[in-house]
């Protein structure tokens, strides 16, 4: 492969890979605390993108019952993405209270939580379709400011000055934002009291409560953080491409699942590694086969799980009798 094409694919892969990582971390932290896969995480991704779209003052050009509606104000994008993701976070909390907690307090099988979260996902998708419509919503091209609007791509010529490599500016911004989020998250989980308590709850909720940690509060915070990360990832992908409608998050939801299984269920560094691997693998799918790009994540998952059933960084599960 030509070196410039290689570098271009690599950078694009890193950019989308970090977004996958952020999204997958939302799955992972919930799994590590409750041992369940939250199938509504893809719908949260969708909601985050819609929230931010409307918070910046975007109009609904869909044909749902709220056709042509919009907020009477528009927030600056940075504020909108934070508020929008936070709203997605609270949707996550709501889902926990409505779909997971009642099952948990009754001691239901974790498999049932999976089904109920799948139900929530369907409700959200249909609600969005009913209210907003099935049409594509696009963020304005100047959402990241006039500079990005004027310079949709930046040429890098560090490999070969005679053949500059164009990289989409949005892609660079998304990569930078994702990287900052990942670093903050690593700090939060590894260095702060919150993170240590969160890991204690994940390891053993009874021991954590014997130390004075309110497990219920940490479950709340976990869903808030998970939803925030899901909503943020949705917005970033939405600005990079567009919001493809109510089913926007479905493919990403499945891909996120591939990412965490690939990295090792419940493993935080594994989710980041898994995201990067899948992002890079997709970026290197030759143009002729780009229609099959989505299949790459799952083919990769299949092959890796044959060799390492516990995922790349996962611990082997020991079934205790």
């Amino acid at each position, binding site marked *: 492969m030509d070196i410039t094409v290689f570098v271009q694919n690599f950078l694009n892969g890193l950019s989308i890979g970090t977004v996958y990582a952020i999204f997958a971390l939302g799955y992972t932290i919930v799994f590590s605390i409750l041992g369940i896969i939250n199938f509504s995480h893809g719908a949260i991704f969708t909601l985050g993108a819609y929230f931010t779209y409307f918070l910046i003052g975007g109009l609904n050009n869909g044909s749902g019952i709220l056709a042509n509606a919009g907020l009477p104000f528009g927030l600056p994008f940075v504020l909108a993405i934070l508020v929008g993701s936070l709203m997605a976070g609270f949707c996550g909390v709501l889902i926990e209270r409505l779909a997971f907690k009642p099952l948990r307090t009754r001691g239901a099988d974790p498999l049932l939580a999976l089904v109920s979260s799948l139900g929530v996902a369907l409700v959200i998708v249909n609600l969005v379709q009913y209210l907003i419509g099935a049409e594509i919503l696009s963020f304005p091209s100047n959402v990241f400011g006039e500079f990005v609007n004027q310079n949709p791509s930046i040429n890098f010529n560090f490999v070969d000055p005679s053949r500059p490599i164009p990289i989409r500016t949005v892609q660079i911004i998304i990569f930078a934002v994702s990287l900052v989020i990942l670093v903050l998250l690593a700090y939060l989980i590894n260095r702060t009291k919150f993170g240590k*308590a969160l890991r*204690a709850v994940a*390891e053993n909720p*009874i021991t954590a409560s*014997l*130390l*004075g940690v*309110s497990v219920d509060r940490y479950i709340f915070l976990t869903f808030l953080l998970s939803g925030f990360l899901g909503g943020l990832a949705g917005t970033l992908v939405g600005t990079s491409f567009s919001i493809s409608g109510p089913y926007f998050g479905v493919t990403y939801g499945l891909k996120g699942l591939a990412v965490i299984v690939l990295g090792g269920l419940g493993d935080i560094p594994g989710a980041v590694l898994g995201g990067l691997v899948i992002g890079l693998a997709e970026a290197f799918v030759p143009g002729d086969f780009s229609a099959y790009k989505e299949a790459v994540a799952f083919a990769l998952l299949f092959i890796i799980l044959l060799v390492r059933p516990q995922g790349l960084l996962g611990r082997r599960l020991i079934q205790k009798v």
Partner: protein
Amino acid sequence: MPMLEIAGLSVNYGGIQALVDFNLHINEGEVVTLIGSNGAGKTTTLRAISRVIRTKSGTIQFNGKDITRSEASSVVSAGIAQSPEGRQVLARQSVYDNLEMGAYIRNDRKGILEDIELQFNRFPRLRERKAQMAGTLSGGEQQMLAIARALMSRPKLLLLDEPSLGLAPLIVREIFGIIAQLHAQGVTILLVEQNAKIALQHADRAYVLEAGRVVLEGDAKELANNERVKQAYLG
């Protein structure tokens, strides 16, 4: 007024009666031990006090305050810490972080650092291993860590669940040396043990549990000489 007073406590555990009309009290500064065979309800008692299992009836009062319906986390804030059965150290966190987590309810950074130092002086082995993941410690070291971690919340009452379980005699002696030290320093302790001999040696008073009921109680030295206790538990 006793520091801890349990009255008429009943607990059902998976359809069986784990505790039946259970009464117990602990005065400040006492070491009280709860002995009995496997499944007698000893661990259930500690779990009920720490509020990590549901109780069916009865009351638990701590320093005159009813904690029967409290959250597990607020029991710790009230001043009761537990070193649970099987140590339950946070295997994937360092020894140091485990100690820090023991002080979760506290916010006095300086006092916490001083107390970590205090635990390291009490258990020098933990200082040597402070950066090590707790899961890689030996059983004895994990037991020391579990006790040190419980002490980090500066509890008024310390609950110890089977601190001798699975440990070599030499380590058991070391652990009980620390328990005697804590007793001398005035720490109030409720000690659950299967090793009745060593427990009775270190306690002021004792309760003997059989199938969820208290069958004997009294002065630890006297119980150690009781024929029934000798036959059943001291072999």
